[in-house]
């Protein structure tokens, strides 16, 4: 194994279909029109010296190293900024060019430290490479003149041009002394990330890279995506891990284990030590970009909090006892059989993980269906995108997004509803912003003024700041405008959908009660904005809808998904590039965990458990009889536990205590069980109620696949041995064996083979195909042998697209005198979900605690100042946290994140849920906010409980 080197072509690829042929250094080459001479040369195998060019950003032409000569043209043009033309004869190496380049390099090196041997970039420095390439042998100018390199001159005077190293960012350093001002970092921040946090300040010799207004990186607008570090050709911007460890020596391509974008990375290693993660240019989801989490926040994998030995205890008030794997698994198996013997077959169940691989998820549901003999299996998608599954399944026929992420490059009008891509799905957010800067229009439907509404080079054409809980009303009002103003696409509807169903739906949405003027009264969105947005979406060209949990986590989540599907069908925005309906999935493998049959009513591939033919396939293969009745969902398991009929649960990689709504109910359910088995990296909050703890492995420690939001199956590759001894799939297999099941998988590829053999939409998926293609998007079968980037191209999966009436029913969660504000919840960029991983990284530099966003008006009424402790109360419970006063939220709405267990925002959320799928209504809770002195009684009790329940016999408690 060696380091994967990606070719840097110097400038981005041209998308032109027209080609031109030219001669470079005697070699004839044909490339697309618009290609730069530099790129064409590289494609012909000739590397023109360069410093300011790299193919992640547009050509800039500042370093003057890549000059070439063209026969019949004067001068020495820069090859990066000169496009190819038919018949050109180009020379990249002549006496004249050699001497110019050498002269340029002399100037660069005369103002650069000569500490190559001790420099962190030694071995990975383009400046060093170029000095070698141009044959630089000495620097006539010397090093004593004006420079940015030395803190003091020879006489000991301070050098005003020198700036100290900026080490404020936890993950990388900025050493201005090493900077050659090529501005690759500035352009990467602008063009790739779209944050515009960097600039070149000053001019001429005074030019410096400046974060913000000459600030340090941490206090600037920088979001720490690392694109600048990747772009830097010198050691000016360097990962601290590289400074500490040294250059990596081998690498493997793998998939990020954070959000549903599913970015591909090269894990660059030295032995079994991870040196850095570098986004892979060929990764089709991220195209070489990353966010702060994927690139930098992997320190949790080796965090001292990780539990590496199995543990058991008889009751949850005892300390944990470390035991052997054998004992832990034997104990678990005997507990489950004891409970089933005593309370019946259906008294146990399990939860699959959206953080684990497809193969691992498949095994857990198999263990429950074949081993436990019931269908009591559910997954965390229950609390996020189950309405997507239901809504899109009903209307289109499949439970998944219709597009690939590349599709956004062809979009003209984007609707973002109930999603905050720049925080929740940052790499997609960057790709979207890039398209917006190219002129695409944007409609944001969100109670908060998210960053996309108004920011550097981004401004939403329409922001519909609706009251939480009124999604269905507002989307139906958009449909009202489209129908009553005749903006629908009749040809598309007649061809692809059922015309009479459309007519029925059209009649429904056209009713006056759905008009924007009526809906304004309950949603608070001015009617003119709704009308304008509807007209723009219907008539602005390719219209794409991206949505998130702000759509699904409502009592009418499924209805909103269907109303979104209706909009797309009515305007013909389905089945080609640049359009579609795209759920932004929360977790790395939430799509995959749904695909793998994690729901109590569905076998892998979304086939209902009551379907005899499907059951037959699995019964024959597994040699067991399957129950044809759907099992319990997570909330039902907890209800049954409280009632005393559900006694044991196997939870792989999910922290339901922190992530599920109404924490009091969850803890009561868990406390009522006799055997709670938690398999995780850390003693998470749920483990406070567990009897068996099976240590889990990280994505770096196992092979497998993740399926991202665009249905893309990406390989996860093992780059280090599991610190706990086993990959999670092996743990499940060992548990199955302990329960007497005859499982013998020796590698996850064998599990994938079983998935492919049983599940039609995965029929052609093999590890060999993934090796060859990098990734594929399901369905991948005989009909689509190489997968399906876009769905419903020639017709809907279900046959005819189905229009469904979407009656708005207000949630029962209403504000009143006691609880006058609406709380909605979400994520922030630097933290991830319950924070189990990101809280154990340096990402806490940006977000050390959950804060309550509150409008200045509401704050003033309550006498609150920014940073004050406040008590947040709902009818479910109360918690305390500090206030953040901002007009990003409207008056009457408050907002917080749920990344920190000591806040426990879900103590506040209620048990209301989606009518179709039980997806909890996280996004609407009526609350009151009042001044407070500090943590609530519940928080203090809980902290004490956590401390007690995390004791491990024979080990010192960690000092606080």
């Amino acid at each position, binding site marked *: 194994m060696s380091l994967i080197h990606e070719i840097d072509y110097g400038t981005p690829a041209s998308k032109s279909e027209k080609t031109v042929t030219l001669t470079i250094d005697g070699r004839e080459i044909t490339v697309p029109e618009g290609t730069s001479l530099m790129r064409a040369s590289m494609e012909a195998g000739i590397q023109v010296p360069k410093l300011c060019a790299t193919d992640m950003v547009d050509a800039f032409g500042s370093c003057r190293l890549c000059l070439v000569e063209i026969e019949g043209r004067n001068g020495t043009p820069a090859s990066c900024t000169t496009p190819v033309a038919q018949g050109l004869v180009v020379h990249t190496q002549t006496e004249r060019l050699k001497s110019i380049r050498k002269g340029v390099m002399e100037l660069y090196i005369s103002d650069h430290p000569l500490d190559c041997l001790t420099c962190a970039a030694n071995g990975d420095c383009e400046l060093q490479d170029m000095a070698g390439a141009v044959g630089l042998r000495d620097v006539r100018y010397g090093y004593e003149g004006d420079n940015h390199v030395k803190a003091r001159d020879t006489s000991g005077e301070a050098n005003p041009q020198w700036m100290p190293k900026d080490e404020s960012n936890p993950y990388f350093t900025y050493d201005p002394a090493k900077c050659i001002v090529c501005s690759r970092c500035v352009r990467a921040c602008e063009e790739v990330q779209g944050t515009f*946090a960097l*600039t*070149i300040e000053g001019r001429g010799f005074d030019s410096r890279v400046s974060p913000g*207004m*000459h600030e340090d990186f941490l206090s*600037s607008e920088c979001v720490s995506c690392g694109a600048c570090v990747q772009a830097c050709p010198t050691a000016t911007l360097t990962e601290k891990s590289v400074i500490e460890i040294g250059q990596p020596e081998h690498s493997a391509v793998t998939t990020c284990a954070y959000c549903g974008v599913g970015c591909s990375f090269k894990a660059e290693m030295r032995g079994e030590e991870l040196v850095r993660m570098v986004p892979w240019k060929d990764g089709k989801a991220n195209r070489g970009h990353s966010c702060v989490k994927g690139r930098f926040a992997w320190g949790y994998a080796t965090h001292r909090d990780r539990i590496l030995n199995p543990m058991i205890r008889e009751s949850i008030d005892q300390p944990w006892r470390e035991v052997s794997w054998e004992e832990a698994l034997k104990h678990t198996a005997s507990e489950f059989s004891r409970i089933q013997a005593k309370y019946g077959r259906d008294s146990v169940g399990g939860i699959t993980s959206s953080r684990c691989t497809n193969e691992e998820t498949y095994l857990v549901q198999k263990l429950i269906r074949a081993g436990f003999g019931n269908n009591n299996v559910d997954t965390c998608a229950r609390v996020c995108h189950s309405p997507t599954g239901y809504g899109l399944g009903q209307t289109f026929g499949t439970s998944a997004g219709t597009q690939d992420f590349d599709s956004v490059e062809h979009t003209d009008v984007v609707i973002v509803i109930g999603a905050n891509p720049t925080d929740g799905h940052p790499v997609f957010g960057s790709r979207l912003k890039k398209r917006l800067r190219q002129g695409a229009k944007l409609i944001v439907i969100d109670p908060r003024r998210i960053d996309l509404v108004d920011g550097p080079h*981004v401004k939403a054409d329409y922001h519909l700041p609706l009251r939480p809980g009124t999604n269905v009303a507002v989307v139906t009002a958009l449909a009202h405008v489209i129908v009553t103003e005749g903006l629908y696409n009749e040809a598309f509807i007649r061809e692809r959908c059922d015309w009479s169903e459309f007519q029925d739906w059209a009649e429904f949405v056209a009713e006056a009660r759905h008009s924007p003027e009526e809906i304004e009264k309950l949603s608070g969105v001015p009617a003119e904005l709704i009308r304008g947005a509807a007209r723009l979406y219907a008539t602005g060209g390719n219209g794409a809808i991206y949505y998130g949990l702000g759509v699904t986590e409502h009592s009418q989540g499924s209805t909103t998904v269907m109303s979104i599907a209706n909009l797309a069908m009515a305007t013909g925005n389905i089945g080609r590039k640049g359009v579609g309906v795209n759920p932004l999935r929360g977790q790395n493998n939430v799509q995959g965990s749904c695909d793998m049959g994690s729901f109590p009513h569905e076998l892998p591939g979304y086939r209902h458990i009551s379907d005899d033919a499907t059951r037959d396939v699995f019964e024959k293969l597994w040699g067991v009889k399957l129950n044809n009745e759907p099992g319990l969902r997570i909330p039902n398991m907890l209800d049954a536990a409280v009632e005393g009929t559900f006694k044991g649960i196997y939870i792989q990689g999910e922290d339901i205590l922190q992530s599920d709504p109404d924490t009091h109910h969850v803890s009561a359910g868990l406390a009522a069980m006799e055997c709670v088995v938690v398999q995780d990296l850390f003693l998470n909050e749920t483990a406070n109620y567990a009897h068996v703890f099976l240590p889990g492995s990280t994505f770096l420690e196992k092979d497998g696949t993740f399926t991202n939001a665009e249905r893309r199956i990406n390989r996860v590759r093992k780059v280090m041995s599991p610190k706990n001894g086993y990959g999670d799939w092996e743990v499940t297999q060992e548990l199955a064996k302990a329960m007497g099941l005859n499982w013998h998988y020796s590698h996850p590829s064998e599990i994938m083979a079983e998935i492919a053999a049983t599940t039609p939409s995965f029929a052609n998926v093999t590890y060999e195909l993934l090796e060859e293609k990098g990734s594929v998007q399901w369905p991948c079968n005989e009909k689509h042998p190489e997968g399906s980037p876009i769905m419903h191209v020639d017709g809907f999966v279900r046959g005819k697209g189905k229009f469904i009436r979407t009656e708005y029913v207000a949630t029962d969660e209403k504000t009143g005198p006691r609880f006058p504000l609406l709380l909605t919840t979400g994520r922030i960029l630097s933290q991830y979900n319950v924070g189990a991983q990101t809280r154990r990284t340096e990402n806490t530099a940006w977000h050390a605690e959950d804060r309550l966003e509150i409008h200045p008006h509401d704050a003033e009424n309550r006498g609150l100042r920014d940073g004050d402790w406040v008590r947040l109360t709902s009818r479910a419970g109360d918690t305390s946290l500090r206030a953040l006063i901002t007009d990003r939220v409207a008056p009457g709405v408050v907002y917080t994140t749920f990344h920190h267990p000591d806040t426990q925002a879900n103590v506040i959320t209620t048990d209301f849920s989606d009518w179709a799928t039980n997806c909890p209504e996280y996004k609407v809770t009526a609350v009151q906010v009042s001044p407070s002195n500090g943590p609530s009684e519940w928080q203090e009790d809980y902290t004490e409980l956590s401390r007690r329940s995390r004791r491990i016999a024979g080990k010192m408690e960690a000092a606080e």
Partner: protein
Amino acid sequence: MNIHNPLGGPLGGVELRALEIVGSLKSLEGPLLPILHALQEEFGHIPQTVLPLIARELNLSRAEVYGVVTFYHDFRQDPAGRHVLKLCRAEACQSIGGEAFCNSVREALGIDWHETTPDGRVTLEPVYCLGLCSCAPAAMLDNELIGRADLAAVKAALAEAGQ
């Protein structure tokens, strides 16, 4: 990646006046330079505190606005003296004794480049070509050009300009 609103807290008089100026010019095509000129006209310099406001109003980042402001030497980050004297240090002026002329002025005023006399009357700035090469060495006091400049001519101009 601050979670705090960078513009949090009440705005002062300078910021409010700056917002008025930004508001009156932001509909121009390429409004940033006209806005910066107007601010400098109003305040005699461009207060750093208004840069985030300009950025927000124009959908730019504060880094971008700062980059533009620092690129142009004529945009001042601190107030100048009541008069600004610019002396040309470019090639044509140097060829006809410009350096000696500059030194004589610096000595007479008792200040170096970019500095202001202690009484706040004159700020001295270098400039690289005023387009007056035929009458080198050249200088400029406020907006008045001085050709074939010498110390006496500068002193006379300063006297005429008053306090």
